[in-house]
C-alpha cells in the first residue's frame, strides 16, 4: 500500500491536517463555537467554486473567503443576539452562490463531489506542499495565542478585566479555524469537516480533564481516524471520507460510554 506515491501523499496530507484540526478543534469545542466552524466550511464551498470560476486554485479561494468570513463573524462579537441566525443566513447564501459558480464553470460532477466530500487520494505534490506550510503556520499561531485564548474561553469577563483583548483574540482564533477548515476540506470535504474538527476534540474532552492531555488526545484521535480511514478505504475500495466518519462516530460513542461509566 505504501509503494504508491499517491498513498504516501494521502497519509502525509491527512496526518498534517488531522493534527491541525484536532488541536484547533479542541478550542472550538471548548468555546462552544462549533456552529461557526460548520458555517465556515460551507462558506468555503463558495470560495472554492468561485476561485475555479475565475481560474484560481480552489485552495486560495477557500482561504480568502473563509478567513474573511471568520473575521466578520468574530467582529459580530460573542453576545450579539441572533448571531447564529445571521451566520445561518450567510451560510445558505454561500451554498447558493457555490451552486451558481459550479453551473457557470460547467465543471463535472466529480469535481463537485470531491469538494463536498473530500479526495485525499488525489492530493497533488503541490497541494501537499501548501498543507505543510499552512499547517505549520496555523499551529504556530495557535500556540502563540493559546494562553489568552484559553483564559478568555473559560472566563471571558475575568479575562477582559485583566486586560486580555478578548474581541481581538476571538477574531484571531476564528481566522485560525478558517485556515484549519481550508486544510480539512482537502481531506474530508466541505460537508464532513466536523468529522475531524469536532468529533475528536469532543471525545477527548469527555475522556480527560487535563488541558494538554486533551489537546494531544484530540490531535491523536483525529490522526488515527484519518490514517485508519485511508487504510480501510484501500482495503475495501469504499470512500476514505466514509470510513473517517464511521471511525469518528465510533470514537465519540466510546468516549461517551467511558465518561458515563466513570460518573456512575
Amino acid at each position: 500500500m505504501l509503494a504508491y506515491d499517491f498513498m504516501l501523499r494521502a497519509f502525509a496530507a491527512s496526518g498534517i491536517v488531522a493534527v491541525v484540526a484536532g488541536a484547533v478543534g479542541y478550542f472550538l469545542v471548548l468555546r462552544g463555537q462549533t456552529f461557526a466552524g460548520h458555517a465556515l466550511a460551507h462558506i468555503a464551498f463558495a470560495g472554492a467554486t468561485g476561485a475555479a470560476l475565475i481560474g484560481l486554485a480552489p485552495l486560495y479561494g477557500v482561504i480568502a473567503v473563509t478567513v474573511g468570513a471568520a473575521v466578520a463573524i468574530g467582529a459580530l462579537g460573542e453576545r450579539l443576539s441572533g448571531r447564529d441566525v445571521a451566520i445561518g443566513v450567510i451560510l445558505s447564501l454561500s451554498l447558493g452562490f457555490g451552486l451558481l459558480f459550479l453551473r457557470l464553470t460547467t465543471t463535472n460532477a466529480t469535481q463537485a463531489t470531491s469538494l463536498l466530500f473530500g479526495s485525499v487520494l488525489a492530493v497533488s505534490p503541490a497541494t501537499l506542499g501548501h498543507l505543510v506550510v499552512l499547517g505549520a503556520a496555523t499551529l504556530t499561531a495557535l500556540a502563540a495565542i493559546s494562553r489568552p485564548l484559553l483564559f478568555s474561553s473559560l472566563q471571558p469577563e475575568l479575562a477582559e478585566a485583566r486586560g486580555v483583548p478578548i474581541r481581538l483574540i476571538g477574531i484571531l482564533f476564528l481566522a485560525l479555524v478558517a485556515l484549519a477548515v481550508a486544510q480539512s476540506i482537502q481531506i474530508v470535504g466541505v460537508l464532513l469537516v466536523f468529522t475531524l474538527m469536532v468529533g475528536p476534540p469532543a471525545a477527548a474532552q469527555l475522556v480527560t480533564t487535563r488541558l494538554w492531555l486533551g489537546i494531544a488526545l484530540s490531535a491523536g484521535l483525529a490522526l488515527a481516524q484519518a490514517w485508519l480511514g485511508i487504510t480501510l478505504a484501500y482495503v475495501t475500495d469504499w470512500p476514505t471520507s466514509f470510513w473517517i466518519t464511521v471511525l469518528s462516530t465510533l470514537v465519540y460513542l466510546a468516549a461517551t460510554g467511558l465518561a458515563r461509566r466513570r460518573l456512575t
Partner: protein
Amino acid sequence: MSDAIALDHATLSVAGRAVLSDISLAVAEGEFVGVLGANGSGKTTLFKALLGLIPADSGAITVLGRPVKRGNPEIGYLPQLKTALPGARLLGREVLAAGLDGHRFGVPLVSAVAARDIDRALDNVGAAELADRPLSEMSGGERQRLLVAQALIGNPRLLLLDEPLIGLDPHQSQVVVDLIGGLSRALKLTVLFSAHELNQLLGTIDRVLYLGRGEAALGTVAEVISPAVLSRLYGAPIQVVRADGHIFVMSHGRDIERQQDHHDHHDHAGL
C-alpha cells in the same frame, strides 16, 4: 490611612443611559463594604468602572491612590457566575492555571512557582480538594470558592466580588461571607461585596453601600438602612423592620430583597 477607592462626582453610563450620576464616596483601605441595591441599580457597573472597563462620563475615580486602569493586578475580581465559567470538564487546577498571566501571549505552561501559588490560594479558602475536581462536577458553592481562590492569586489589595452568593443556600452563603470576612481582616484586604440580601452580611461588613435611582448612600448599617435614605433610593415609601437580629426592608408590606432574589433566580433559569 489612605483611600482604597475614591469617586469624585463620577457619572457612569451603560449604553448611553446614566446608571450612577454624580457619585462621590470614599472607601478606606481594609474596609469590608457590602454593596446592595435592586437589579440594574449599578452594582456591576460600579465594579466595571473600578476595573477600568467602563470609563466615567465625568468626574474622577481613583483605586488605591491611582486613576483606574484596565488589568490592574492589585484588584482581585469575581464576576457574576451567570455568565462566567461554562461547563468545561477541566480540573479546578487547570482553570486557575489558565488565568495566571492569561493576558500574555504564548503557550499556557504552568511553572512550579505558579502551581504553588494555585495550591496556596485554594488552601486559603479551605478548598485544596477542588484542585483535582473537574469544574463541571462542582456545586455552585464549590465553584464560588474556586473563584474566590482565583481572585486571591497574586496578592491583590482590593477584592471586587460581584454577587458571590448567587445560587448558594443560606449555609453555604454564610461560609463564603465568613471566609471573605476572615481574609479581609487577616490580609488587610479592602472588599466590595455585592449581594441581594443584607442579613447575610450583617456582623461581617464594616459599612454598606446602597445604590438606587442613580444615587448612592455609603455609611454604617444604622445610617444607611433607614426609611429616609432607602425611600430616596427606591423612590417609594420604605419601611425598615428590625427583628431578632435581622433587618427587613419592606415596601407596601412586602420584603423587597426577598422578592428581588426570587425574581433574579427566575431570570437565571431563563438565561
